[in-house]
């Protein structure tokens, strides 16, 4: 698939050059970056930006913080072959599970604009399912240290290989863009059992209405899991005849540790207001899942900011609430400590994947230069029982119900 993509790109890259006029090809190199430090006051939960990250800011038993979570550097090549044909390639150095070069290739597409109001793109595209899902890495473009955790940690796929078509309509005092997209996502995630090589066909449609100060977007996105999470160790336990003899009904847990051939349906509505002084973001999403391993999740956030010259002060409230039905793990017929340990392990595996968290943030952004912003943010999280599903579980013997996260950093573009 990757080779086909590369050949497609080369073919497109070469053909227009042969017929280029004086102005074209016109190319440019630009980029963006963030360097940040994030710290927490817990030793048992590891803070991550999303599930693609291999390292959490908290280290087991050490607490403290780290610079990996909020740091990244992106570089982008844009080439115009004509006023309607264009290509973009973007690569980002960041902490990402799986192949470092392939997974961090964020964009690699050809776009064709046959008419001023019609865009067709093919290649590797950013996931445009939510208000800021396609520019999550570009910290300079938003006020926070990172996209709201309660909402965006669960949106782990950054990109997919496929195509989209967008038609723009002039409507009243704004512009309505209707977009349809389809493709195949190949994203690697870091899960408790190892790296999940997730292949998933996906499709969706979005409506975005934009005026001077407002952008409102509604999206439906369907995804299907073609591959399985690395659940062999769990299945080995669940299907063990010896264990089933002492834990009757254990094999019935198998569907609860599987993702393959299940579906996800994302429905989201978001809006952003920015009048140069006041800044507001609000977004709500419902994720419907076939599998109890993910479960249905309702999430949302609201952020309000006020600019005072070059400084923006903001607050964010966020919530993620999963609707997971508790799965009973069979109790061993013999109260053997080893068997009780297996029961506890399986209970964590099938019942600790549902988020039940809320957060409140206060933060500031200071534009010290037209292309450089300094930021800081404090976040307080509340968890319901077993609700810290968006965190790495470093020590399950301690389950805090509140955690503070503080961070500071710099975002820039060039």
């Amino acid at each position, binding site marked *: 698939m990757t080779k086909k993509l590369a050949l497609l790109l080369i073919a497109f890259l070469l053909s227009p050059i042969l017929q280029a006029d*004086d*102005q074209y090809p016109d190319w440019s190199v*630009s980029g*963006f970056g963030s360097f940040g430090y994030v710290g927490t006051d817990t030793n048992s939960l590891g803070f991550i930006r999303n599930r693609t990250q291999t390292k959490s800011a908290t280290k087991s038993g050490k607490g403290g913080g780290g610079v990996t979570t909020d740091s990244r550097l*992106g570089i*982008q090549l*844009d080439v*115009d072959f004509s*006023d*309607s044909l*264009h290509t*973009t390639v*973007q690569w980002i150095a960041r902490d990402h599970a799986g192949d470092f070069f392939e997974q961090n290739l964020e*964009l690699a*597409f050809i*776009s064709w*604009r046959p*008419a*001023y*109001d019609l865009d067709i*793109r093919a290649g590797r*595209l*950013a996931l*445009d399912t939510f208000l*800021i899902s*396609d*520019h999550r*890495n*570009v910290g*300079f*473009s*938003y006020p926070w240290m990172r996209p709201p955790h309660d909402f965006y940690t669960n949106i782990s796929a950054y990109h997919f290989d496929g195509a989209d078509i967008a038609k*723009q309509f002039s409507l009243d*005092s*704004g*512009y309505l863009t209707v977009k349809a997209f389809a493709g195949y996502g190949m994203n690697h995630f870091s899960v408790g059992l190892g790296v999940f090589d997730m292949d998933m066909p996906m499709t969706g449609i979005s409506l975005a209405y*934009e005026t*001077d100060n407002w952008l409102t977007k509604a999206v439906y996105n369907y995804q299907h899991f073609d591959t399985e999470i690395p659940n062999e160790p769990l299945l080995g336990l669940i299907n063990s005849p010896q264990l089933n003899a002492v834990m009757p009904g254990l094999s019935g847990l198998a569907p609860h540790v599987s993702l393959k051939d299940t579906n996800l349906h994302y429905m989201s509505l978001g809006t952003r207001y920015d*009048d*140069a002084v006041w800044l507001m973001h609000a977004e709500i999403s419902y994720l419907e899942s076939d599998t109890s391993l993910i479960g249905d999740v309702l999430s949302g956030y609201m952020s309000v900011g006020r600019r005072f010259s*070059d400084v923006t002060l903001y607050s964010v409230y966020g919530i993620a609430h999963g609707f997971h039905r508790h799965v009973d793990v069979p109790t061993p017929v013999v109260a053997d400590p080893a068997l009780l340990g297996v029961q506890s392990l399986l209970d964590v595996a099938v019942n600790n994947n549902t988020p039940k968290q809320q957060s409140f943030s206060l933060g500031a952004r200071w*534009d010290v*230069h*037209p*292309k450089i*912003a300094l930021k800081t943010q404090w976040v307080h999280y509340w968890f319901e029982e077993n609700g810290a599903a968006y965190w790495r579980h470093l020590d399950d013997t301690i389950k805090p119900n509140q955690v503070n996260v503080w961070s500071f950093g710099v975002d820039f*573009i060039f």
Partner: protein
Amino acid sequence: MFGLLVWTSYFKPMKFITLSLLLLFTSPLLADIVVIGNLQNSNPVMSARDVQEIYMGRKRALADNAIAYPIDNSDLRKEFYRYLTHRPIAQINAYWARLKFSGHRAPPEILLDTKGIISKVKANKNAIAYINDQYVEESEVRILFVIKESDEPYQN
């Protein structure tokens, strides 16, 4: 007479030179800004809203549905966007960072010198740009919109 005495008592050569230099270097900011297009541009004139929407990437087409090619002037960018959008350049850069690095739309090309801008507008039928009014030759380019030095920032 009294005024002259006051003036001479306040006159300081260094202050005068400093002020003169300041005026010299800021003089482009004190003139009118004109939005120009190619002589074949399909828009006879443009409104402030047209210019704003093209430069913010929302409106893409000229009157004949050709794709507009906006050009930024690095010397006048701050005043131009302050007039059109009330926003400082950091906000404009953040706005375009979102669109550019998500692969949606490219920001206007930023050019450094007025001669280069005029050449580009003359060479591209769909180009629009903005320059200081003192550099405009109406035989070379078409004036589409004028931002007067005294104009208040545009309100939608």
